[in-house]
């Protein structure tokens, strides 16, 4: 049986194809990553690479190890479910070097309204304030402890709430008078200011204790004759007691 002679063209073509196929196979071996297709049509190493990303938020359990006192306080408050890093920001760096890096602690008025500012889209019953009406200008922390925000702690000074009065009195001749000189402040007023009011002077004679002729007060205090000065008007009809130059 005669063997069919293989034509010369076929042999050279076959060589070319063999080289091409071998080239492709080698290229595939070199170019396709080793782990590709281990679990599916993807690079298995990518999963580990993604999993090795740096962590920034440490989680509230991590904070508890050192700040257990604050944690305890927060645990019994309305903020019990608010993680520390909601307000204090990502804190892994702080945990790694507690003394060098301190986490943020928002103290101004800007942060709390992010959750507690009034927004009609918020769920009903969520505690909200109208920022422009709720003690404007005062940082929330003056009255509310963020780690236990339900009952505001009692303000230490009247100016915490009565800022405008305080700043006016500060530049007036009455600067040295304590608020309690003219107002009796019941303890309950500090907790429930709208339901329990402070007293206010009710008569001309009250101002007269210092300002009437014959008063025993220091002599540099201006005196008037209660009988003739201002006739039937009350003192505060003309003088604003917190800044008492005549208007």
């Amino acid at each position, binding site marked *: 049986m005669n063997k069919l002679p293989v034509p010369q063209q076929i042999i050279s073509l076959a060589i070319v194809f063999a080289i091409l196929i071998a080239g492709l196979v080698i290229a595939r071996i070199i170019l396709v*990553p080793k782990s*590709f297709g281990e*679990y*599916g*049509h*993807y*690079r298995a190493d*990518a*999963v580990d*690479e*993604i*999993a*090795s*990303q*740096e*962590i*920034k*938020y440490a*989680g*509230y359990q991590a904070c508890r190890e050192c700040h257990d006192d604050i944690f305890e306080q927060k645990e019994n408050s309305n*903020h019990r*479910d*608010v*993680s520390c*890093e*909601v307000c204090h*920001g*990502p804190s892994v760096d702080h945990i790694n070097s507690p003394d060098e890096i301190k986490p943020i602690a928002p103290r101004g008025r800007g942060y709390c*309204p*992010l*959750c507690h*500012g009034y*927004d*009609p*889209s*918020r*769920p009903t019953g*969520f505690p909200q304030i109208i920022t422009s009406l709720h003690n404007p200008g005062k940082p929330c922390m003056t009255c509310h402890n963020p780690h236990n925000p339900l009952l505001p702690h009692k303000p230490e000074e009247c100016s915490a709430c009565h800022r405008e009065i305080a700043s006016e009195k500060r530049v007036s001749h009455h600067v040295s008078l304590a608020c309690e000189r003219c107002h009796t402040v019941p303890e309950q007023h500090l907790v429930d200011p709208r339901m329990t009011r402070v007293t206010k002077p009710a008569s001309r004679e009250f101002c007269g204790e210092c300002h009437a002729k014959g008063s025993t007060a220091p002599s540099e205090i201006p005196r008037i004759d209660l009988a003739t000065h201002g006739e039937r008007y009350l003192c505060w009809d003309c003088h604003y007691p917190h800044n008492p130059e005549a208007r």
Partner: protein
Amino acid sequence: MNKKDPARTGRREFLMSCSRLLPLTGFLFYPLIPGKTLFGQESGYYDPTRHNWAMGIDIPKCIGCGICAAACKNENNVPREEHYFRTWVERYVIPTEGDARVDSPDGGIDGFPETKEDFEILRSFFVPKLCNHCANPPCVQVCPVGATFTSRDGVVLVDEKYCVGCRYCIQACPYGARYLHPQKKVADKCTFCYHRITKGMLPACVEVCPTQARIFGEVGLASSPLRRFLRFNDVIVLKASLNTKPKVYYAGADGEVR
């Protein structure tokens, strides 16, 4: 009587055979070693085949503070500029007549400006959005190079070294959950904070949500908080008709939520 009964086990043999079982008793005490649980994720070894992660979102609890969106950007180095988000919060305002208005100024990170609309509002609420980690993900289907994939624990991930930045997946995602990273020029998306969940932590957005509007856990584990959430709520998934089988479940969702 003193003669040994071959059918009965002697004291010596009994104790000897018991001692062979001694190594097994270690398993009883293994969960007591601090930081170790036998099948939990706390032990140093993470077995992806044992997990299938998903998220629940309780819409009536969301207060729209945007802290989740901000924390996500912090945790995952997402560009600060607008339009680049792995998760964001949308505000739905539904008028008594006409179509619902949806807005999300800077993803809700700095809060929402007050609505001054001239129409009467029927209801309004916030809806956090993120990648739905679909069980049948269209983005994975269209990727021409195998750079985006579903991991064995049910999380849709992007291999940023393999992505060629062709944007097919961004087009394919019906939820708009992907963006092209402006510096890396690769597709980027929510990973459920894969680097955290594989170490037994919660995703950053879940960790910081002040009202627990986000619930994270396993689909397959009855004790998981997610399963509890699914038991106690009527949930929907977004765009169920597309058959993408999303794994982010929304509770208390209005019919307008898309």
